[in-house]
């Protein structure tokens, strides 16, 4: 694996759509790091998230198919009713096994998989949500020395999810969406 290849993973639940939109809007079309977005939503919901992001982002928003390759310049959206796993050859594998934290897609599943495959080259962001999903995956990334960020609970629409992460990971960075956006932009390599 190319050790320089990075990955950004973003997870959100209640309030996560708006927050992730603010973070991703304005990232350039040639943004050098692929982004994976896992948002909780209603089961069996059709792919309207992709349309929503497609309209508002400069980056290309794609709903993940099984074995879609992971490339820069894209935001990959987890489809409804599937977990998203990452393979060593930098493709996605989908999974329709049991719910995790009452969710499918589960943020923990994707974050844990990112920790295994991208290790310290992972940048993970956990946003607003009324769930405990995401913390243990964020911790796995932290333990591999990846960068872990929780949305400032004071700003989050529902603080439960970022708070759970902050409480379980002492080294977790806390930022509002504006700073998260600026931070991601600073990672972009021309």
């Amino acid at each position, binding site marked *: 694996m190319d050790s320089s290849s990075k990955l950004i993973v973003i997870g959100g639940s209640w309030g996560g759509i708006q927050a992730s939109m603010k973070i991703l809007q304005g990232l350039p079309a040639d943004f050098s790091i692929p982004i994976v977005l896992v948002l909780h939503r209603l089961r069996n919901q*059709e792919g309207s998230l992709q349309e929503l992001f497609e309209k508002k982002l400069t980056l290309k928003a794609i709903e993940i198919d099984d074995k879609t390759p992971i490339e820069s310049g894209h935001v990959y959206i987890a489809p409804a009713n599937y977990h998203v796993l990452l393979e060593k050859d930098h493709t996605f594998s989908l999974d*329709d096994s049991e719910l995790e934290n009452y969710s499918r897609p589960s943020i923990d599943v994707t974050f844990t998989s990112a920790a295994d495959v991208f290790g310290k080259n992972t940048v993970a962001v956990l946003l607003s949500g009324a769930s405990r999903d995401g913390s243990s995956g964020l911790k796995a990334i932290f333990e591999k020395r990846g960068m872990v960020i929780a949305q400032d609970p004071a700003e989050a629409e529902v603080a439960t999810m970022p708070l759970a992460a902050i409480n379980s990971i002492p080294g977790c960075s806390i930022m509002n969406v504006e700073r998260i956006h600026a931070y991601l932009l600073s990672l972009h390599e021309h």
Partner: protein
Amino acid sequence: MKLENEELFEQEVEALIKEIHTQYGYDFSGYARASVYRRIKRFLGQKHLQSIEDLRKFLFTDSFFFENFLQEITVNVTEMFRDPTFYKSLRENVLPILSTYPFIKIWDAGCSTGEELFSLAILLEEEGLLGRSKIYATDINQKVLRQAKEGIFSASNMAGYTASYYAAGGKRDFADYYTSNYGNVKFNSSLIKNVVFYPHNLATDTSFNEFHLIVCRNVLIYFNRELQERVYRLFDESLVSLGYLALGKKETLSMSGISNSYDLVDKNNRIYRKTN
């Protein structure tokens, strides 16, 4: 359970996969690794095992334990009328064409515990086609095949299944298809009187018949690209000219070598039709 070293764990799993193939004949070498690693970690956790070494001891001395393992590694999470729009599309776009054949042969590949199978049978029944259809229901796992044959599902799922049935264009009272008993429901066995159940391993077995429709939803997501390619060729060999192939909502033929001989009949539901 705490796995200190991911790399070591992965090496041990690779060795285990080889050993399982030798001892039991099941070949997992083409399974998507991200999923296999995750399923094995999950299984270790469930069984309170600390390492792959501990797992080995049980796997190779206890065939019942192995069957259990097999069921966990090959994901068997399924539901009736999953993705109602898929069943609606099958009803509206595919069954009218299939009804022009005097006799309809369908392969439900990876039928698991039978939820998909009974959903298909109900659809055929309501379109008046069940009597002249034969469904071949196959799975790698004999245990789930036995369950599928029983047609017994937990009553706690029925509210969700009923909603999906109507969303899929269901025409009757869903409760007419089953009888309730002790927290379970049993689906009418008349629905599967033309179903042949038998074990088939997509990773190693060959084509065994010709079909007008192959339904294989969310099975190939657990395979790597090479094994997927093998299975797509197997399906291609097993479909009649102008036959249909139904995949899961997020599975695509587009990366496969056979994609040129298939038209996408329904893009959102990934129903393909062989063109030659």
